[in-house]
């Protein structure tokens, strides 16, 4: 590229090295995160305008509330009855779209007990701002 701009090439090389590092780390961590534990209990999550329904493995259903046990793995099978939603527990970085016609999965294992927010993070219309539920994580 014409005249001497070796400082630019060194700079570009440093940028690329940083990006490779970020990309490799991300790949590694995502690989670990996506590995679902074998004993994870399945919870079916149904999103619809504008509330959440949860169905446990034993068939109990909850609307607007979800009760889980601490230090126990849960796998969510998320789908939607109408438009796109997004199942989100910000405290535990659980986030996955609920898409009609598809079942998306995400898992987590709550490591502290208490009361947490569940919210919709994908625009879904009139009451999107208040499409919320409560997560209760009960002691060990």
């Amino acid at each position, binding site marked *: 590229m014409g005249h001497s701009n070796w400082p630019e090439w060194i700079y570009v090389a440093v940028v690329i090295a940083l990006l490779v590092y970020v990309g490799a780390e991300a790949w590694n961590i995502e690989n670990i995160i996506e590995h679902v534990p074998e004993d994870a209990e399945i919870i079916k999550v149904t999103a619809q305008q504008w509330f959440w329904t949860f169905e446990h493995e034993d068939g109990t259903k909850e609307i607007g509330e979800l009760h889980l046990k601490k230090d126990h793995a849960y796998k969510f099978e998320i789908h939607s009855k109408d438009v796109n939603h997004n199942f989100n527990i910000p405290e535990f970085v659980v986030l996955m779209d609920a898409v009609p016609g598809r079942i998306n999965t995400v898992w987590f294992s709550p490591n502290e007990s208490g009361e947490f927010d569940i919210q919709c993070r994908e625009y879904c*219309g009139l009451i999107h701002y208040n499409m919320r539920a409560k997560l209760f994580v009960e002691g060990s």
Partner: protein
Amino acid sequence: MVLTLAKPRPIWQIMFSTHHTDVGLLYLIFSIMAMFIGGAMAIAIRVELFAPGAQLIADSMTYNRLFTSHGTTMIFLFLLPSASAVGNYLVPIMVRYKDMAYPKLNAIAFWMIPPAAALIWLGMADFGWYANPPYSVISAPAPAAEMWIFGLKILGVSSVLGGINFIVTILKCKHPDMSLGKVPLLAWSFLATSVIVVMAIPTFAAALIMLLTDRLGVSGFFNPLVGGDPIAYQHLFWFTFHPEVYVLVIPAIGMMYEIIPRFSRRPIFSHSSGVFAFVLLAIVSFASWAHHMFATGMSFTEKTVFMVGTLAAVPASAMHVFNFLATMWNGRIKFATPMMFAVGGIALFFSAGAGGVVNTAMPLDFITHDSYWVVGHFHLFVFGTIAFGTIGFFYYLFPYVTRRMYNEKLGVVHFILSMVGASLTFFTQHLLGLYGMPRRIFDYPEIPEWIAMNQIISVGAMIILVGMVIFLANLIYSTARGKPANMEDPFGLGGKYYYPYSQLNPHHDKAGY
């Protein structure tokens, strides 16, 4: 030139002209008007979010219509036309041709925008600027949705016509003595942008037709009730609109390439690496669209591919930043308003890019996705980088358009307010996103951190508003009463101001002007 109020030309003469400076002026005036309309919507949104509960807006439907129209207005009616304004003024001059290649097509491309704007503003659709199905198919109220679809359709045709015009002007009409390597970087930026537009827009044009027929009930491409796939729309949409981000950002970078060497009183560090980075950006812009969709349930492989594609755009952007810094290094810099906006824009561009790396790293995306982090991230691009570059360039172009000087003190005040306001607003939005606040919400629960950060953001938005009002007053007052500019060198930089700045508009300007 074109807008000298001392010897006013009848308005219809400008409106029905096909000369590139007249069309450029129309683009310029329209884009500034759209910026204030879109800005008013943003202010309404920020007032509403100042505290939990309904503040200014009565119901969420109105709020949803406002943020949709705000996004559509700012992207399609402010940023795109403002780039076209600069391109129309300068690209023919830079390639030393008398006009754009197809002057009538140029005027047509502009005049398609006002009707499209009317459809968008009168309809006020409510599905977000991305019109995601199935919401936009089964839930969004008519006729606003149809009006938005037709408005965007018209804007897409207008963009493609404008893009073809720039490509032909630069490649076919440039002076025979001028090799492509000698074409100034601003003109190169328009070439790269136009190629992206011509390649990307047709995909969205198809998606819009499919959306419309879905809404009419004659097809079910995106409607899962009849076996369609809503995710297909997202692919088509982002295949157009991720490259579109570069369509907006590349001309702004090109404008900085004009401002920074002149105000540093040094030649550009490397013209060829600027060209290389533009071409590289134009290519890799097509490799990253699905990073908007990591949370739709993509497989691990898909996510990896699009993460790599997204990261590939970073070195090219970083080359531009390097080029700017190396040009300023040891330069005798004059910090007039255009230079301040350009340098501020580079700083915010760098921050926005760094945030982008965080977004694309797969595990981190699940923290930031659809939260206020994303809102802050792309506003750092669209406001912090693109609007900064463009507004700085408007100041730079001011003597060229009006033969007068703007008020420098007011310009500096505008810059300081914009920089402070943008930092308060958009950096705080990043933090708010990390605290989990979703985008596109009309109201939020009383979480103390959320309230505090929303109030900082709203105050920042107000500071930007004050700056913009000063900008408008400066433009209007200086156009009418500003000091006559020294057209040889209005900024006192010791070089020629513009190529043949005295080039007359053959349709209207009288000789001896």
